[in-house]
């Protein structure tokens, strides 16, 4: 075992690395050894005691590199998260069968603890990580049983599935059965099918879904809502004349979720798809509202996508336009009869902050399933009635 200063993002963090390829039956014993080592190191350095803290079991799935989104992987992101939300990290890494160690074992494990010096000085707050590599399908099959064995009792379990789109496979279903909450991110997925699959999962499982893609939309939803706060404006939403939304390619799923949310708030609607299925860059639908029909246009184009890839939302209602548009990476403008191009700063959250927020609070946002379901139906060009 060795203690290494973490060269990562949080200054003052110390990682105590345990053995590689440890016996799976001895994981807890290895961890106990690391705790002793951390305690002794703190005592030698004249620091106060090492404190083991744990609020969550975080089960982190890491798919093979070719399946991952092109961004820092979840375990790196969680280094920052666990400094704020102490947790036991169970990292499940799926590797090719060819990389299996000699001896034919389908899984191998390692442990380490990471200690952050409390900002108030003195003691170290430590979290522990158990890594499990599964080699090929056989290795993957071990994951659920190992997770069951290694969870800290009586603490909630969050499945962190942020490195790839959550495809409905056996592994995901098995892990979901063990989980109270699942964190996914639908935004980086270029496939609209991702929203369709997540929609099915949300309806099939008891775990609370926290979609970082949806959370990123929170400030946008508040701004869109503010376009209709003035007296008489809500009434205009009953007389919609059209909705147009423009996104970058990476903001497509955000655009669908935003549209799903907007439509979910408008009462009784009936949708017929027009020229939507199978298209990549342009979609059209027709919505029947109580007071008539209106078109929706969805355009995907290049642009600077600081607003989670959303470039513009234009709602035409009651003879007027209510527009939210991106000005630059840090600002948006609200154009409406009441706002007159008011420029607002965007206060986006970075991914570790989103994950911390996703682990706090009640979990599932009640609006999400509705918005997601409509988004999925729009993508599937499925006519509906609600």
């Amino acid at each position, binding site marked *: 075992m060795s203690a290494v200063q973490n060269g990562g993002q949080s200054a003052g963090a110390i990682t105590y690395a345990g053995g590689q390829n440890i016996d799976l039956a001895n994981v807890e014993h290895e961890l106990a050894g690391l705790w002793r080592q951390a305690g002794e190191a703190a005592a030698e350095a004249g620091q106060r005691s090492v*404190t*083991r*803290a744990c*609020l969550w079991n975080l089960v982190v799935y890491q798919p093979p590199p070719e399946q991952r989104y092109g961004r820092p992987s979840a375990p790196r992101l969680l280094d920052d998260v666990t*400094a*704020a*939300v*102490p947790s036991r990290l169970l990292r499940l890494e799926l590797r090719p069968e060819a990389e299996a160690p000699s001896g034919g074992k389908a899984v191998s494990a390692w442990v380490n603890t990471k200690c*952050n010096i*409390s*900002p*108030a000085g003195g*003691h170290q*707050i430590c*979290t522990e990580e158990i890594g499990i590599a599964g080699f090929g399908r056989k290795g993957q099959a071990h994951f659920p049983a190992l997770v069951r064995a290694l969870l800290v009792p009586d603490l909630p379990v969050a499945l962190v599935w942020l490195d790839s789109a959550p495809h409905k496979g056996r592994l995901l279903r098995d892990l979901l059965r063990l989980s109270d909450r699942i964190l996914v991110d639908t935004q980086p997925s270029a496939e609209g099918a991702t929203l369709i699959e997540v929609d099915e999962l949300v309806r099939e499982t008891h775990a609370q879904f926290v979609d970082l893609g949806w959370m990123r939309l929170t400030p946008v*939803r*508040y701004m*869109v*809502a503010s*376009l*209709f*706060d003035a007296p008489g*404006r*809500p009434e205009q*939403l009953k007389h919609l004349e059209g909705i147009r939304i423009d996104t970058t390619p990476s903001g497509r799923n955000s655009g669908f979720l935003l549209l799903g949310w*907007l439509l979910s*708030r*408008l*009462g009784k609607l009936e949708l017929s798809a027009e020229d939507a299925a199978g298209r990549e860059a342009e979609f059209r639908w027709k919505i029947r509202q109580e007071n008539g029909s209106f078109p929706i246009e969805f355009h995907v184009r290049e642009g600077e996508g600081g607003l989670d890839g959303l470039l513009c939302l234009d709602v035409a209602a009651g003879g007027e336009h209510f527009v939210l548009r991106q000005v630059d990476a840090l600002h948006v403008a609200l154009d409406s009869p009441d706002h007159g191009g008011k420029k*607002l*700063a965007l*206060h986006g959250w970075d991914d570790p902050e989103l994950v911390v927020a996703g682990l706090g609070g009640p979990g599932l*946002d*009640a*609006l999400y399933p509705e918005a997601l379901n409509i988004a999925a139906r729009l993508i599937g060009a499925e006519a509906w009635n609600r």
Partner: protein
Amino acid sequence: MNPLRDGLIKERVPAPQVMVIFGASGDLTRRKLLPALYTLARERQLPSPFSVVGFARRPKSDEDFRGEMREGCDRFARRRPVDETLWSSFAECVFYQQGSFDDAAAYAALKTRMEEIDAKLGIPANRLYYLSTPPSAYPTIIDNLGAAGLVSRAYEPFTRIIVEKPFGRDLESAQVLNRQVKQVFREAQIFRIDHYLGKETVQNMLVFRFGNGIFEPLWNNRYVDHVQITGAEAIGVEGRGAYYEEAGILRDMVQNHLFQVMSLVGMEPPISMDSNSVRDEKVKFLRSLRHIPDGKVDEYVVRAQYASGHVLGESVPGYKEEPGVDPQSTTETYVALKLLVDNWRWANVPFFLRSSKRMPKRVTEIAIHFRQAPHQLFGNGTGKGPVPNVLSIRIQPNEGIALHFGSKIPGPTTDIAPVNMEFLYGTSFGNEPPEAYERLILDAMLGDSTLFTRDDEVEASWTFITRIHQAWAEQKKKQIPVFEAGSWGPSEADELLGEGMHWRRP
């Protein structure tokens, strides 16, 4: 109703506003208020747009003020080091306005300055005033604010005022001050701050009692033997001898902080968590405190002064040797009280409170002492029998909760040893709780007065405390007991507790 607002989680982000700190040259602004505002900015909890204006007598430029506040944030902000990018945008909204509290022209200038800020930043004339001045200046500032047209009693745009403690020095002065403030502000606009209520553990008292099913059934005279609340400080009067001579610890700590804590321990469950429901219950509890019978104050209250001694490795002078203190002073720096509560829940359960300067360490805690098991099966006569169960709630430092109970010592006998089951904020949540001022300023910005003291609460606590002061005044004692600095207080305080009981060593 805007259907797009439906289901959006209600944001705890306040409306755009200008905050004015009166007495901005003081230590509180530099050490607590601006660091709290900076931390709120860093955690994206400040309104946008927002501005803070420091108002004080000393001539100073905006830049000078920003420099002083930056230094304060560098030293005292919870989130350090200070983020340069964030600070530069935050500092752009920090201003300084020079003026005397009694100069009407200064308020007119302040008004103009705020209107300029409103116009520049797009703030809809919402105002939050913070009185961080000596209490003697409160009436002058409040009157001038009213006369200058700087207070609107309307709901929108809003005007609110935060008033620092002490709120009065006895019942009569508190009533007078309440009347003065309410001539200009509505009660709902007044936020009487007691920073103890901003502490995480104090707020957790409500969650602990009413959010868990297992504690409240034990929280009554059937299971609780007595309650001890300690507010101890290791420091002395720190150069404020003249102020302390006028105040004393009963005014400085007990009337506000300890009574607030005690009322949260003793109150009945509120019907909801809205500000008035919670405060209604606190007032009910304070009103059920049994008044000390005439001529018996010494049976219920012990007062004392610290003499010289040793605290945390330093030799310290006695109170009467402190600068600004009358050598014949009978002002108490230590007080212990035995309080009885005339209601069904707490009948015959004494609440013991003590507070002092120059104790061995700084600690504030509540200890609920439970009754012993009705029949003793273990350790008869050996001294290794059952220990009392104590639930201790630590408010500062090392915020947390511990349950003290007896456990069998491993081995062939049934000897019992005391053990602790402990929860610490730092351990469980991995980070330090926010500063009290962050929470309280944010709540005032939001208009949530749950953690602030209402007029009737202030008057209920002063009603009780003033009777003690009156009784002491009638005694005309030439001297009061002393205790060695660095000890846990005078032996007279032990006699308050009664047979077989003792003060906890927190």
